């Protein structure tokens, strides 16, 4: 039996902790101090980040491939007999993420130096970037669910701050709110997951959870675990359904952060933030944190939970891909594309392809950041054309067109990244997407029946992806520059220039990194060094009874390599590209029809354009419902509940009046009655009506008699 305390005792001192602390300290330092540097903030923060990147590369090289990774554990605080511990785990996924986060963050720092050059609030911007990097590293390095949750929320905070960076724009601050709240909704699930796991295992240390999960079992529909705590045996038992619930609850966290259906609506809005931020947070790292977290808790998910994960991933991938088809805002296209790709990663996790999901995460991080930064270059350069007279939406693809001639470097970078996204061979996207598709296929085969639908959705997304990204390329870079015509200012054309080196270097680096040779010379994901590095022998951890079949078994059954699958996926991608080129080729009718204003009219296109009306549903129905509800409650609180209290007070007053009037009216009335009955005896009526003392006496006597009668009977 497992002794719980073995997991919770701090590890012996390891000098590595200094390195880890330094990794945290530098971005945090940037957060606190960039304000002091005013205009030099980019240099200072960039310097800190560069150091951090070097550190992480060094660490990654040092600890590469160690199984099962280096663990550093300590106690945060204790309450009662329970210790809340923290632990760091440096294993391959963590190290890769470490490098990616720091590296892309560094590139974004560099890129932003130019992009934000004229913004007065630059120090604040760099401070937020520092905070973000710090929080993100927390998710990556900590190996305790509680700490992952903590940094999870902090990442949410920095995302909120960065989306709302231009807080004068109402849309920006609203988008920030939306992002934070949507994430919070997901986090409720995460928190519930923590509650369930804590109740069952009394710890949230992932290392411990993995082993304890393996020790647990289902008995008579109950989820039972025995372990030793301080040498005493403890048996915990919960209803078996809580096992699946825990997995689904944790997944809810990922749904929020990685923008999965039904919480994905915040991500397109988050494009209100500066474009480099979108590249860093809303494409490469933060949104991928959900997937990374799923990989961390992968072993805690049972078959039901995984199924939910797979279905949600597939739905998200398809829905977002459809939505991306008709967007005019270049960042929106990329945003939906991100959602869609995240759907792929989640799908991969759901079908048990932990490695494929992570691999796609890594490749996607580069090419999507590349796409965003390229878009950033375009936006930045177009922004320079804006004058007080000429105002236009710098992100609207309808004003662009033909930019290839003005910005060739950007064009090629964008194109390569796009091809990677579309999943053409020789690009990194191909490798990872192929891995996902193979695993999905194996899973569908294993499950059979309606589950083929999931595979179908995955393949449908391939063609859609190729189409919308090629559409963007065509609209932006081919044909002729539409802005001068639209605004009637032909002289603008000459001013449009390629971005400077500060902008281009990061873009070029990212574009290079979206070629497949970086990750492996072969055409197959199997041979990629990166893919192999994350293939941990996790099968031994997962309790057999919780999942019907392990990934290895599924793959063995369905076959690991299917040429027809690759052919099909490449074919679909090519088909998508060709269709896009045909439709949006220069001079094509559709391309000419834009006047920069019109919204799509066709109802089918509208469904895509308005992203399945999900947002409408949320704001017009759910949010309105909650607000009405809260207004009603406030009314209830003020009028009814408080009213009751006031009513009570008022009743008291009334009672006071009543008792006061008792003499005057009730007794008088009584007197009236007596007077009426004895009216004929004498001229009493008048005298009794107003007789005061006598009324007093009568009331006293009457009460005495009443008392007597009541007492007697």
């Amino acid at each position, binding site marked *: 039996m497992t002794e719980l305390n073995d997991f919770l005792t701090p590890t012996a001192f390891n000098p590595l902790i200094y390195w880890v602390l330094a990794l945290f300290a530098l971005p945090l330092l940037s957060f606190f101090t960039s304000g002091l540097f005013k205009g030099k903030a980019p240099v200072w923060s960039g310097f800190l980040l560069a150091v951090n990147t070097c550190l992480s590369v060094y660490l990654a090289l040092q600890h590469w491939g160690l199984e099962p990774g280096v663990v550093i554990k300590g106690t945060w605080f204790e309450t009662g007999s329970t210790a809340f511990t923290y632990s760091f785990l440096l294993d391959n996924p963590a190290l890769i993420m470490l490098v990616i986060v720091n590296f892309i963050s560094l590139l974004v720092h560099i890129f932003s130096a130019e992009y934000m050059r004229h913004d007065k609030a630059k120090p604040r911007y760099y401070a937020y970037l520092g905070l973000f990097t710090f929080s993100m590293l927390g998710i990556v390095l900590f190996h305790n669910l509680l700490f992952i949750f903590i940094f999870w929320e902090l990442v949410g905070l920095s995302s909120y701050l960065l989306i709302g960076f231009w807080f004068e724009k109402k849309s920006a601050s609203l988008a920030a709110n939306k992002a934070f709240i949507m994430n919070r909704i997901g986090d409720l699930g995460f928190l519930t997951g923590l509650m369930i796991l804590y109740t069952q295992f009394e710890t949230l240390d992932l290392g411990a959870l993995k082993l304890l999960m393996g020790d647990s079992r289902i008995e008579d529909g109950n989820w039972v675990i025995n372990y030793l705590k301080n040498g005493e045996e403890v048996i915990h038992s919960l209803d078996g359904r809580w096992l699946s619930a825990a997995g689904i609850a944790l997944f809810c966290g990922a749904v929020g952060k990685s923008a999965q259906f039904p919480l994905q609506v915040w991500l397109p809005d988050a494009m209100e933030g500066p474009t480099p931020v979108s590249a860093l947070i809303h494409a490469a790292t933060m949104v991928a944190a959900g997937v990374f977290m799923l990989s961390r808790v992968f072993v805690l998910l049972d078959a039901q939970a995984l199924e939910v994960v797979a279905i949600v991933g597939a739905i998200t991938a398809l829905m977002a891909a459809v939505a991306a088809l008709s967007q005019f805002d270049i960042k929106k296209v990329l945003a939906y594309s991100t959602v869609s790709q995240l759907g792929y990663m989640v799908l991969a996790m759901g079908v048990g392809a932990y490695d494929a999901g992570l691999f796609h995460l890594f490749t996607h991080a580069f090419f999507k950041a590349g796409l965003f930064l390229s878009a950033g270059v375009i936006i930045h350069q177009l922004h320079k054309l804006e004058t007080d007279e000429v105002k236009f939406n710098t992100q609207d693809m309808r004003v662009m067109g033909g930019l290839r001639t003005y910005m060739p470097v950007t064009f090629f970078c964008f194109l390569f990244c796009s091809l990677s996204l579309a999943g053409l061979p020789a690009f990194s996207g191909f490798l990872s997407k192929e891995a996902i598709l193979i695993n999905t296929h194996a899973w569908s085969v294993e499950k059979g029946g309606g589950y083929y639908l999931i595979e179908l959705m995955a393949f449908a997304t391939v063609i859609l992806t190729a189409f919308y990204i090629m559409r963007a390329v065509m609209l932006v870079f081919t044909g002729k520059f539409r802005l001068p015509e639209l605004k009637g200012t032909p002289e603008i054309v000459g001013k449009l220039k390629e971005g400077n080196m500060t902008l281009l270097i990061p873009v070029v680096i990212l574009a290079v990194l979206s070629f497949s040779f970086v990750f492996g010379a072969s055409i197959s994901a199997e041979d990629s060094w990166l893919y192999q590095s994350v293939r941990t022998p996790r099968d031994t951890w997962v309790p057999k009874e919780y999942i019907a079949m392990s990934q290895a078994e599924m793959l063995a059954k369905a076959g690991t390599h299917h040429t027809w699958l690759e052919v099909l996926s490449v074919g679909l991608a090519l088909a998508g590209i060709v269709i896009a080129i045909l439709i949006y080729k220069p001079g094509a009718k559709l391309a000419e029809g834009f006047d920069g204003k019109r919204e799509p009219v066709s109802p089918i296109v509208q469904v895509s354009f308005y992203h399945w009306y999900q947002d409408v549903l949320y704001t017009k129905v759910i949010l309105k419902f909650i607000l009405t509800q809260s207004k009603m409650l406030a009314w209830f609180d003020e009028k009814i509940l408080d009213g009751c209290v006031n009513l009570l007070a008022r009743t008291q007053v009334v009672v006071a009046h009543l008792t006061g009037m008792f003499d005057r009216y009730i007794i008088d009335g009584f007197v009236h009655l007596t007077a009426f009955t004895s009216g004929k005896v004498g001229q009493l009526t008048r*005298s009794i009506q107003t*007789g*005061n003392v*006598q009324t007093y*006496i*009568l009331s006293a*006597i009457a009460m005495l008699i009443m008392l007597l009668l009541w007492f007697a009977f």
Partner: protein
Amino acid sequence: MPVEHLLFLGAVLFCIGLFVVLTRKNAIAVLIGVELMLNASNINLVAFGHFDPDFLQGQIFALFVITVAAAEAAVALAIVVKVYQYFQTADLDKISELKG
């Protein structure tokens, strides 16, 4: 005469006194009603004193009551006079400034 008759007389007298107290509008008349009530008690006391031949406490009590009633009447009349000065009436209906 059986004692019951006396007690009945006392009860009737008490009720009449109370009735007078409650119905007459003149203060003096009300006072007379009170006297009737007191005398009802006196009749009771004397009647019961009949069974207390050794000490005759009832009779003695009655004597005290008569004395006290006289004193009370004296005070009462003085007050009525005073009230009359202010209100120019002894009608109890009209003497009702204090209320509530």
